[in-house]
């Protein structure tokens, strides 16, 4: 564990500044280590203290205080970076697979993993001239890239598709007071990372007959060939829904969330109360995000941090309250 930091206060307490570099190693992490099914055990991934992971990053924060006039305010901003590396998994050097993700020693945990999108087949000739995908592959199906050049699209044609962890997160706070009013607004957010959103993917299924997202109206058909959404077909032998980087399958999970807005009024002290404050607060005010889901602020699993499978949405809360102390 390494920590190097710097704390400064400048200009007569008007500016606070903190910078900190950290590097920490976590060992003996619980890992489900796969054993072959041929062992016949009902638990084919017994849990062992076999994992070791490093996290490192830089945290910066600065706060400006201006209390010189009647309108007092503080502005604070912070940002931090994260770099993650798995040192050991204890799985005999084998990677651990999660939902659409793979964790390998020497790399970040839970990186997105799957096939590579090359476009949509427009004709039967194109299908016949391409590496074999399935017996039912036809115009309108997705063409996947043959990574190892063996003219067949199979498990060896999958690769790392990008990071499922945000590398940058930040927060902003603005607090102000004027006479008896106080006001604060807080926001936080994360930078770009790739999200495998299971709800969006399941609403964009090619096969069967369950409900769809309205985006499916733009799916490929002979009248609508300039699209990157594959055709709708009852039996999807081509596996258009498989883990891949096809457009829409790995979305940018970056977001900025206005997390709290609060306004309060402190009533001047009277006979009974030594202090009295009324406030209105809204939490989870608004989130700016491109993710096609109701909750960009989700918790994925250990081995698939970028996998959002119907995580419970954070509600928006309104609070009205009184804080007072009796003499």
């Amino acid at each position, binding site marked *: 564990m390494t920590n190097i930091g710097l704390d400064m206060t400048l200009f007569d307490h008007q500016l606070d500044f903190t910078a900190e570099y950290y590097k920490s190693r976590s060992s003996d992490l619980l890992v489900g280590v796969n*054993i072959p099914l*041929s062992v016949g*055990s009902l638990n084919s991934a017994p849990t062992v203290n076999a994992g070791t992971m490093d996290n490192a990053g830089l945290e910066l924060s600065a706060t400006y205080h201006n209390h010189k006039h009647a309108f007092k305010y503080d502005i604070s901003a912070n940002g931090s970076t994260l770099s993650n590396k798995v040192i050991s998994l204890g799985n005999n050097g084998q990677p651990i697979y999660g939902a659409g993700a793979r964790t390998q020693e020497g790399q970040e945990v839970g990186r997105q993993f799957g096939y590579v999108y090359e476009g949509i087949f427009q004709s039967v000739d194109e299908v016949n001239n391409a590496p074999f995908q399935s*017996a039912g592959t036809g115009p309108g199906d997705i063409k996947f890239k043959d990574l190892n050049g063996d003219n067949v699209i*199979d*498990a060896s044609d999958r690769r790392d598709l990008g990071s499922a962890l945000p590398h940058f997160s930040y927060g902003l706070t603005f607090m102000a007071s004027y006479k008896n009013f106080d006001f604060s607004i807080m926001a936080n957010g994360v930078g770009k990372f790739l999200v495998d959103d299971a709800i969006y993917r399941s609403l964009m299924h090619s096969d069967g007959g369950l409900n769809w997202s309205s985006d499916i109206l733009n799916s490929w058909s002979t009248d609508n060939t300039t699209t990157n959404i594959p055709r709708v077909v009852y039996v*999807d*032998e081509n596996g258009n829904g498989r883990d891949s980087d096809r457009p829409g399958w790995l979305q940018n999970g970056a977001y900025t969330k206005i997390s709290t807005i609060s306004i309060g009024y402190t009533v001047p002290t009277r006979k009974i109360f030594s202090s009295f404050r009324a406030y209105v607060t809204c939490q989870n005010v608004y989130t700016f995000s491109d993710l096609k889901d109701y909750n960009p602020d989700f918790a994925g699993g250990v081995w698939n941090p970028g996998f959002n499978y119907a995580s419970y949405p954070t509600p928006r809360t309104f609070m009205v309250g009184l804080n007072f102390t009796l003499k």
Partner: protein
Amino acid sequence: MKLFKYISLAVMTAVIFGSCDKKLAVTDPNAQTSADFWKTESDIAEGVVATYNLLLVDGTFARTLPALVDVRGDDVNSQSPWTIYPLTGNFTVQADYAGGYDVESWIWRDFYQMIAKANLVFYNAPNVTFSNDDYKNRLLGQAYFLRAFAYYELAENYQVCPLVLSKPLDQSEYFPASASEDSIWTAIESDLIKAQSMLPTSYDNVTGEDQGQKGRATWGAATGLLGKVYMIRGDYAKAAAEFKKIIDANIYKLVANYGDNFTMTNENNTESIFEIQFGDFGVDANWVEPSLSSWTQGSALDFPYGLTQYGAWGDFHPTQWLYSEFKKERCKDGKLDPRLYWTLVTYEKEYDTDGDGRSNTIFGEKPYETNKLDASNNNIYIAKYTYARIPGHTIEGDGKVPGSGINYRFMRYSEILLLYAEALNEINGPTSDVYKYIQMVRDRADLPDLATTKPGLSKEEMRDQIAHERALEFGVEGIRFFDIMRWKWLSNPDKLSLLKSHDSEFNTYVTGHEYLPVPQGELDTNPNLSKNSAN
């Protein structure tokens, strides 16, 4: 104060050293471990029952095994949106289907769990005292049969796999290499020969806890499977010898009504050599081990095979070829082959006037009159192992899945008769014995005497005749495709063309892909494992 300090120090010391008392180290009777088990004869008996349990789960006979075998045959095809079914049926399923640990790995997973349980019986039996040798032999004999049965299914489906014949004692034994095809079949034969010598012909007259119990493996089951193994390996003389033993023992008899082999009544009848015991006992579903005590212990096969119009999933349909095959020959009384009625759901006008119990009433109503089902038979459906031909129900499986109580008949006496005829034909050509044993099966279906309708067949022609007889007798019973494999039709260009004309799924057949691929997840986890011809 000082005295108080010394007294408390003394008390604490006494407590620390006195607390090393083993009285607190007790075992939890509600969470039994293997350290508390495997002590008595009844523990071994429970261990054997636990091994049988693996025949009732999703990866084995409750659904996936019959489905993935039938769909590869020319008697069944699939247009299910669950693509594992059509992809297996047209021989293009890949090893990493849905991540490599999905459906095509369930058969592998569940049979290895069965093998592990049998190996636990073998590991622990030497340390247990048995009340009598006969009972001990019956228990061990069943374990040998079940282990052989598991390896038989693994070899038939996956071609090569590791041969695990004892409980692994150390983690270093968790990564065995695949065994060769020959050594797997030799091990199966060896276990079956042991089972054959240890099992009774029936449990009706044994002395012990298992007296009177039906459904346990018998001498007949071990001998029948051994004969079938010899047929698969091409050793016709040994096969014929085993089948003759069964016929001469005079234990089994074909039941008069073919349909009695496919309902939840008339189970374990005189024709049954080995059947998987499904029930309708509890209330809860259970697809994998460990199983719930509230489990129905039912089969799920009626839903993928059953009619969507009656609440089932309709994942599989019979081929038009199988239907036409039934219509090639009428019974002596001019009626349609009764086996058509019990195998397929089709509209036949004459069912309404046959007067022998057949009718076009399905699930208590007349769907062909209301156009709910297609009377032109462009769409036909599977009847076998569904509730479609069983009176007293209005929807498939009474809406419960898995919940079908229809036992899966793994081997019936008619198979012994037809295999015996086939073996004799291979050894000596179509002798009168060959005709005789085939005719026993035809007689039950009231078909004319083959020796009169087709006398003087050549050996090759008799092979085709037997193939036809087996298609009708064993349609949609998990048998047809394994027959196609052992007859080597897939590597015979004429026969492969024939198969393509029966079932267009054969158009994408590629050599080697008659097997399911070794699951990718298993190849990823076990670096010593070999691929098979389908990987």
